[in-house]
């Protein structure tokens, strides 16, 4: 067991992947000499060389597209997109090529490409540096999408993404990069595509993922003071979603709040609400309530605190759920 930050845990996870499998390689902008703008790949070029940690030309479609080609040649590329808002020049390659390659080939080919995307707000940054575009990828079949919320998951989920035969997008909660926690580097956790119940409760369930997991836990603690026993689930995987775990919880608690930073409209919360409403219709004492961003581009830094779902927004949603 070692204590480390999420950033360090991903660094160690990448290091382990590079060491374990010579077919792995890292590609991205500024990931080599600089070690990435968040230093997540710090030291890896020095230790594995420029053929395995590749500072690419500045072109996201190029990064994803050449990664697909490398995968076709038997490599396992791990691409870094510098910020959430800059994945879009690579959207075509992800959506029409990476996701569809396996189906196109009737299952003959796979493209085990990993795409790391630091995402989310709360870092006081400028435009395009604080977005949560996960829903724009979740709708596309062929991709898998995971997001760790703590160092232990970060360390293992990145490695599990690398060894998965399917393309995996790893959304890294960038405002939690310096969150510390224990990492058991000896024992792998289970499947990265399952949800984890982080706190047991009996009156309501809060589902969150990535950067909002600590917020959900804090909200549950605050609710306890009001006499409400709130269960908290870390979704961990956005595609597929572990609906079994959520359904089981809601069947017990009867109330569900889903929280994410991404705008509510068309967000992944809608999928969860719709499916759980169907699966647990007769158990629900209140409608599923979503807490998310508003229907606007991510706002300027000076107002992001008002924008981001926080403890109070989750508590307010709980109030509404308990009002039924």
């Amino acid at each position, binding site marked *: 067991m070692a204590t480390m930050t999420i950033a360090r845990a991903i660094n160690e996870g990448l290091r382990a992947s590079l060491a374990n499998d010579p077919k792995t390689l890292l590609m991205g902008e500024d990931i080599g000499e600089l070690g990435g703008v968040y230093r997540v790949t710090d030291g890896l070029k020095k230790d594995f060389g420029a053929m395995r940690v590749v500072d690419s030309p500045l072109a996201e479609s190029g990064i994803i597209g050449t990664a697909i080609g490398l995968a076709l040649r*038997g490599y396992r590329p791990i691409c870094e997109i510098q910020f959430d808002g800059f994945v879009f020049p690579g959207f*075509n390659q992800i959506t029409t090529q990476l996701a569809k390659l396996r189906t196109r*080939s*009737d299952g003959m080919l796979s493209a085990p490409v990993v795409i790391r995307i630091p995402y989310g707000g709360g870092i006081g940054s400028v435009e395009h540096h604080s977005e949560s575009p996960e829903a724009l990828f979740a709708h596309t079949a*062929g991709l898998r999408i995971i997001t760790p919320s703590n160092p232990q998951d970060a360390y293992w989920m990145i490695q599990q993404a690398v060894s998965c035969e*399917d393309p995996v997008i790893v959304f890294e909660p960038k405002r939690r990069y310096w969150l510390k926690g224990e990492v058991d580097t000896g024992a792998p956790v289970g499947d990265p595509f399952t949800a984890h119940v982080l706190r047991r409760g009996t009156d309501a369930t809060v589902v969150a993922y990535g950067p909002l997991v600590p917020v959900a836990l804090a909200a549950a603690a605050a609710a306890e003071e009001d006499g409400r026993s709130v269960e908290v689930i870390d979704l961990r995987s956005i595609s597929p979603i572990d609906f079994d775990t959520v359904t089981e919880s809601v069947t017990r608690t009867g109330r569900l709040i889903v929280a994410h930073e991404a705008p509510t409209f068309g967000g992944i919360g809608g999928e969860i609400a719709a499916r759980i409403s169907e699966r647990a219709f007769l158990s629900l004492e209140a409608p599923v309530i979503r807490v998310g961003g508003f229907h606007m581009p991510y706002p300027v830094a000076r107002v992001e605190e008002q924008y981001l779902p926080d403890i109070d927004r989750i508590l307010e949603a709980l109030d509404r759920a308990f009002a039924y």
Partner: protein
Amino acid sequence: MNGGRLPTAEFEVEEVERAARTAELGQDRQAEPDMLRILDPEGRLADGMTAGIAGELVDFAPYLSTSDAPHLLSLYRDMYLVRRFDQESTALQRQGQLALWVPLTGQEAAQIGSGRAMEAQDYAFPTYREHGVALTRGVELSEILRLFRGVTNGGWDPRERNFHLYTLVLAAQSLHAVGYAMGIQRDQLADPSLPQAASVAYFGDGASSEGDIHESMVFAASFDAPVVFFCQNNQWAISVPSTVQTRVPLAKRAEGYGFPGVRVDGNDVLAVEAVTRWALEHARTGRGPVLIEAYTYRMSAHTTADDPTKYRLSGDEQEWRTRDPLARLETYLRSAGLADDAFFEGLADEARVMASDLRAAVLSMTAPDLESRFAAVYAEPHPLVQEELRFFQQYESGFADEGKHA
């Protein structure tokens, strides 16, 4: 945002019409084709072929196979068979046996010449029209028709043929070719005893405008990737003439990235083969990428759903018929005494058999069941797919029991 409104009439001035016509016909702008050629439209073979490429004089003699009679005959055979394949596929489409067909007639020399230049260990990334290249890579022609019959989006195992699946999103495959070439580089660093290899990215004059073509050239140049960019400039992107995509030969793009670009007569199979051999050797031996522009013409429609009379002059089509890639090689083979009527008749017989086998193969292709498609989405188990598959199975079996509604 709302500038003043102008009366419509103001736009209908003569300049507009002239500008439009210029863009359409592109006559006064496109540079006169200046390109490598060894066999001219009259079927006359030049003495040799040399060119100044990136400041060096390249003599293509070592790459030319003009004196190898069996080879010449086999090039003709490939071109002939794939044209026959094209005709049969067009017929099959007309008869409703294929959903769509993408003809290659006119581009046989560009495709057979470049395809035959490849070695087994090279790997090609086609668009959707490279049936000729497919043939040279050993893809069963009937396998190609599976896509156009709508029973698969693939059709063959690319790893067996070193010929990738058709890619319909224009230019996307060009980056895959570069990435694949970057993989070749790494393989060879790890095991220098591996045969040197390269990848080939096929794309058209229309696709050349897509950002992915640029990014693939940037990456290829940056990493000295062993890739040959092979652009078939067939003059048209559906109804849009190549002059809308570029005012200068596409081969010139390469200079801007610092690697060689060559324009070759795409209707001269011998020149195409030689230039591609040279380019592949260039790439394989660590000297970096090459761009080849094969100047050719799409003699048929864009697809069977297209009607070229809407946008191009039949005179143009006529004119290009005089540059037919098969005709000129036939003329040469006959005049050089390398082939006689018997050869051509034998080939016609062979093609007839091929066509009827093809037809039989197509008619026997069965549609997959949707059920089978659930398994092809992910390599590893996926609960949502499993859930939807269960629903689908129950839903379908419900009908088996009850009979359909409505």
